[in-house]
């Protein structure tokens, strides 16, 4: 990953019919990274991506894509998968992929050849000449994704790419994203499924109510919370109780508390010296979900879970 920014946005603001959708978004996506934008539906993710791509103009703020203030100037080296998938139903799959490449300046003949290779490599060789309307939703989504990367872009923007896919296709997509990133392509995607971002991204932005609540490394987001300690002792009382921090609380026979700032060694020493009789002790690093709850709030996390559940049911 280089220090050059593939995307830089400052103070993006957009309202529709007087209602603010995005309120001052700042984003910096390093080239070669996988970057996730996390937030519940309606948080402003799609609007942000559409502004970054120049599909809509921001009311305020500035953005640059691969060093260009006008996104269409670099359209040849950008790929975009919109949230609402768009394909011509009567078009053959190979033609659809080649057409999307042609829109980005790839000669049609080259696009057709690459499309055929991509389709065959991904087990869709039988569908080369089949019309889009004959494909399943997941397949059509895969075709559109191929169309997004057919011209070998330097930057790929995916809006809710996992939406509507079953678990197998989600896994395939994750693999494809990793492959793209490994070849030096910057990938930015929006999602309301935290696990995808946690598995794939180096950096994330958490959006809620049109505002950025966090922007940085995934590790930084997780580091906002102290590791959680779960402790079971033989002794019910004693001097060791003085070693427990103020937030320690019993639950299901365990003491639970955040690891004190001094670290684990002083805690262990105090517990042993105080005669706690440690039966079980675990230290868990908080996941991105916990970090999300802490950053965006319980309500936003609940919305995300609901969106995710509804989508899983729809995909099933």
């Amino acid at each position, binding site marked *: 990953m280089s220090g050059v920014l593939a995307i830089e946005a400052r103070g993006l603001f957009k309202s*529709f019919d007087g209602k603010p959708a995005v309120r001052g978004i700042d984003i910096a996506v390093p080239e070669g990274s996988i970057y996730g934008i996390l937030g519940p539906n309606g948080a402003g993710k799609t609007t942000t991506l*559409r502004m970054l*791509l*120049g*599909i*809509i*103009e921001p*009311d305020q703020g500035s953005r640059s894509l691969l060093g*260009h203030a*006008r*996104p*269409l*100037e670099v*359209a*040849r080296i*950008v790929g*975009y998968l*919109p949230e*609402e*998938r*768009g*394909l*011509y*139903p*009567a*078009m053959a799959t190979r033609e659809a992929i080649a*057409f*999307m490449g*042609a*829109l*980005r*300046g790839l000669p*049609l003949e080259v696009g057709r050849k690459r499309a055929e290779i991509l389709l065959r490599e991904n087990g869709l060789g039988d569908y080369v000449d089949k019309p889009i309307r004959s494909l399943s939703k997941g397949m059509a989504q895969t075709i559109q994704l191929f*169309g997004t990367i057919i011209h070998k872009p330097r930057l790929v923007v995916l809006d809710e790419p996992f939406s509507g896919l079953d678990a197998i296709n989600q896994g395939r997509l994750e693999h494809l994203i990793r492959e793209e990133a490994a070849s030096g392509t910057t990938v930015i995607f929006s999602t309301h499924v935290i696990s995808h971002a946690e598995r794939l991204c180096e950096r994330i932005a958490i959006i809620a109510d049109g505002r950025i609540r966090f922007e940085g490394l995934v590790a930084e987001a997780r580091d906002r919370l102290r590791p959680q300690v779960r402790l079971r002792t033989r002794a019910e009382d004693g001097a060791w109780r003085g070693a427990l921090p103020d937030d320690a609380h019993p639950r299901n026979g365990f003491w639970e508390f955040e690891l004190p700032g001094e670290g684990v060694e002083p805690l262990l020493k105090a517990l042993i010296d105080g005669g706690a009789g440690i039966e079980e002790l675990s230290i868990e690093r908080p996941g991105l979900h916990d970090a999300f709850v802490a950053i965006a709030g319980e309500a936003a996390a609940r919305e995300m879970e609901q969106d995710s559940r509804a989508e899983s049911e729809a995909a099933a």
Partner: protein
Amino acid sequence: MGLFEAAWVIARRDFVATVYSRSFILFLLVPLIVFSAAMGTGYMAQRNDRSAAQPVVALIADSATVEALGWARARLVAGTAEQSLPPLRPVAPAENVRAQAARLLADEQDGYSAVLSGTLERPVLTGPPGVEDGLGAQLQLVIDMARRDAAFAAAGGAPPRTEIRRVVTAEAAGNLKRIRRNIAQTAQTIIFGVTVMLATLLLSNLAEEKSNKVIEVLAAAVPLDSVFLGKLLAMLGISMVGMALWSGTLGLLYLFVQALQDWMALPDAAPAVGWPAFLLLVLVYYSANYMLLGALFLGIGGQASNIREIQTLSMPVTLLQVFVFLLAMSAVGGDGGAMMWTAYILPFSSPLAMVAHAAQHASPWPHLAALAWQALWVVLIIRASSRLFRATVLKSSPGGAFFSLASLLGRKPG
């Protein structure tokens, strides 16, 4: 990508998608079916109209009078037209001719307009008030002709025939003017007809992209101007394919009919600019007319969110086209008045008016000015349509200057 490069990608896709669709065959067949149906019904209607609309006169007379009047009428209509004189239908005289005439005029089935009775020397015309003005004047000619023939026959001779010495020239200005007006009107009608046929297709042209959400993919990759331009070019190409097929079919039909009987000779007179230049100008002005109205309709249709709205828009759009057509017709044999100049200058009527101009005036220079003027308006309308689409459908401020040469050529500013 530059505007034209991107437009070409869009146009190619649309063209191929349409030409290879089943509905394209219908598109090609519809005008031929409509044309054949119009010819057939027109012929039938004309025939019915001819027999229904012409007043018929009952002729109550002896056989000699019937024969004399019949001959006189036949000679007169030979020099004019069958419709110029009322048919005379002989009826055997009854005892009371006056009562017979009244009966005949009251008979709804036969539908006589007047009754002619008596002899050549003392003819009697019975009919409603005013019968003496129209029918009376026409029958007067027939009776006079019959009486002259009878007089010559009684004298044992025939009326002398005046020999007219004929001096043949290339063309008479009056005829030429008339033929060129006809050529102008025919060219205008063809352009108008084809554009009307394409109007609904243009209105609904962006509907597919909007319903399939492809518009988002297009808008992220290429300038919206090129989407509009590409769609227009594709439809223009499709209509050209159609025109080639239709004109080819009509040409073959003409040759076939010519081979059977020589009744459809083309006029010797040529349009003022000559046939090759005129045909080229028809094609160019058709394209200009199509692009101007097409850009407007595409812009209007882009605002519609469903088929119902598109159907609602069709009526005012057709009315607009009819208005433009009527305005452009004022340029045919125009007297240089304000209406004619409005037709030349108003962008939407300009191509039709200039086709008429090409048929009637030889100078090529006005066409260069007109085409430049129309091209400018095509650019302006496409630009305005795409900005409106961006603002209302994509919910974005238009962004950028209304016109930028750099963006037109696909170059980075600065």
